[in-house]
């Protein structure tokens, strides 16, 4: 059983704190994705779990062992690096079997376990090649094979797909997910690609500036972002935002003077006079004549500035309250720039964020 626990984990480089005391509990067999913008401390956190970086403060447990002072080799974790880090002077079979050779396992056991891993990842025909003779996707697979051969307690992945082209990335993403379903080992996966995070994760950990902003299932985080940062970071296209103030009349008055009615539920939660940022996702707005935005919807008039046809839908861009907004047009028709359109906002799905604390109200 490999539960991973982080307690108040801090990483300091001299006077500089790059990870500010994070707490995280990861259950056995769980697929957890750390996601956040570049430089937020994802790799650093992962490398502390792996034992490649010292832990400045706090405790990391793998299973029931405190691993703070254990070298990487004693933690029974496997790691897949961004650049794969295959041993260039060893062929695929030797790369796969290296950890077992170092552990002095008997020859037949090595052969058998290497064959098993190669079978899972479809590497059988490549066993005699050197890493330099493999394609990016094949190297990626070898790197994963090297990780699973050891039957580790935890898999660590640091942006394993970022060196691949878009198509291969999608394909390998599926393979990683399948692999996890097959081996059912705890996975901690780092990426800055939110789509990768959404599709792979049982639970997502959103990080920013060395801190955890929110932990939750992809759906939970998508629908209930804890704050403005998470709301903007997750979802594509990003959430549409507008500044405003909540009024006595249970409406939100936007900067352009427009007043939108709040749902009773929302109005009950937010005091009148609060300065807010209103957010709504592109999916929660419906163009007139292109569907139904629900009972709580309210109509606004906009002037389209650009439309991007995607086939089964179009993304329509327009300016609203001094910001660029995007809305999905389902069952699309051609939209000319400058065309006037009516949009229904589903007020039931509107989020209000406190303007100063940026926390969701």
């Amino acid at each position, binding site marked *: 059983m490999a539960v991973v626990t982080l307690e108040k984990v801090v990483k300091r480089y001299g006077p500089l704190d790059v990870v500010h005391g994070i707490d995280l509990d990861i259950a056995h067999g769980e697929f957890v994705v750390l996601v956040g913008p570049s430089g937020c401390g994802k790799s650093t956190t992962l490398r502390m779990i792996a*034992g490649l970086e010292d832990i400045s403060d706090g405790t990391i447990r793998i299973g029931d062992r405190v691993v703070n002072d254990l070298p990487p*080799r004693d933690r029974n974790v496997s790691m897949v690096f961004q650049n794969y880090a295959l041993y260039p002077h060893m062929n695929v079979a030797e790369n796969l079997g*290296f*950890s077992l050779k170092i*552990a002095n396992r008997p020859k037949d056991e090595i052969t058998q376990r290497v064959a098993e891993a190669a079978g899972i990842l479809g590497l059988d025909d490549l066993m005699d090649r050197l*890493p330099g003779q493999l394609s990016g996707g094949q190297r990626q697979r070898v790197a994963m094979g090297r990780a699973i051969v050891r039957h580790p307690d935890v898999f660590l992945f640091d942006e394993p797909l970022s060196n691949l082209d878009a198509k291969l990335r999608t394909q390998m993403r599926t393979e990683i997910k399948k692999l996890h379903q097959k081996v059912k080992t705890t996975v901690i996966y780092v990426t800055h690609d939110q789509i990768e995070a959404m599709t792979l994760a049982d639970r997502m950990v959103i990080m920013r500036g060395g801190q955890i902003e929110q932990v939750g299932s992809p759906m939970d985080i998508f629908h209930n972002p804890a704050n403005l940062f998470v709301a903007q970071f997750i979802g594509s296209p990003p959430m549409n935002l507008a500044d405003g103030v909540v009024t006595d009349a249970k409406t939100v008055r936007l900067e352009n003077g427009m007043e939108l009615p709040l749902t009773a539920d929302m109005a009950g939660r937010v005091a009148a006079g609060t300065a807010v940022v209103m957010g709504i996702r592109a999916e929660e707005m419906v163009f007139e004549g292109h569907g139904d935005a629900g009972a709580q919807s309210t109509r606004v008039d906009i002037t389209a500035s650009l439309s991007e046809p995607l086939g089964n839908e179009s993304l329509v861009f327009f300016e609203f309250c001094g910001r660029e907004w995007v809305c999905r047009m389902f069952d699309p028709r051609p939209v000319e720039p400058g065309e006037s359109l009516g949009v229904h906002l589903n007020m039931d799905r509107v989020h209000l964020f406190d303007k100063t604390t940026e926390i969701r109200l």
Partner: protein
Amino acid sequence: MMVSHASRKILLKWGRWVGTFVAMSLICIPGLWIVLSSFRPNVEILSKPAVWIPENINLDHYRAIFSSDPGQGAVPVWNYFQNSMIIASTSTLIAIIIGMAGGYAFARYRFRGKNTLFLGFMLSRTVPGIALSLPLFIVYAKLGIIDTEFGMILIYVALNLPFTIWLIDGFFRQVPEELGQAAQIDGCTPWQAFWHVEFPLAKSGVASAAIFAFLTSWNEFALASQLTRSTGSKTLPVGLLDFTSEFTINWGGMCALAVIMIVPALLLTFVVQKHLVAGLTFGGVKG
């Protein structure tokens, strides 16, 4: 235009050949002349105008220097050779061991004063060796290690280390840090990770450093001529001086000894060259 373009290409090709030929001649002809002269009688070596095509090839000079009669031009070749071998290989071995540790440390670890130290190493190489000879002579005389192999090994290690460290550092820098880390996660101690993964990949750098260190020690003359004086410690380059006497120089004997000196150096280079080439192809492999 097409024609002139094509002919220019041909011209360029020939130009390259001729250029290479001239450059190689300039480099090789003195060496070849030495080899040639070692097999020719003195009359032919010294004749004016020069005899370009050897008319008389024999082993007289070799026979003479290996003979036991100093009057015939015998020199203790075997002693010199031994001294040279012991001094050059020991100092190379030590320089490589320390250089590997140092180069690895420079490539992998961050520590205080790293850049200053590195600069210091480089600056130490700007002092011409001959300028060191007098101070070294005095220090060595005080320590009583003048005219010893130990003294020569010491100075050659010191002389070779900066370059060795610098070269090996460069090669370890080319080995991605993640490889060693991956090995440690795969169950290696840092020591095992070094020998199983990082060393094999930087091997060619170590080999080139070894060649350079060996050749420097093998050929060094300025310091050796000051700090050695007996057959117990004189090296081959210093031994060449045995052929000069007050009024004459035994060119033939000197050339023969020079050939004896060149051969092991050439052999070593050929043997190690294989690794150098292997090192070049490693660049094509992405981690």
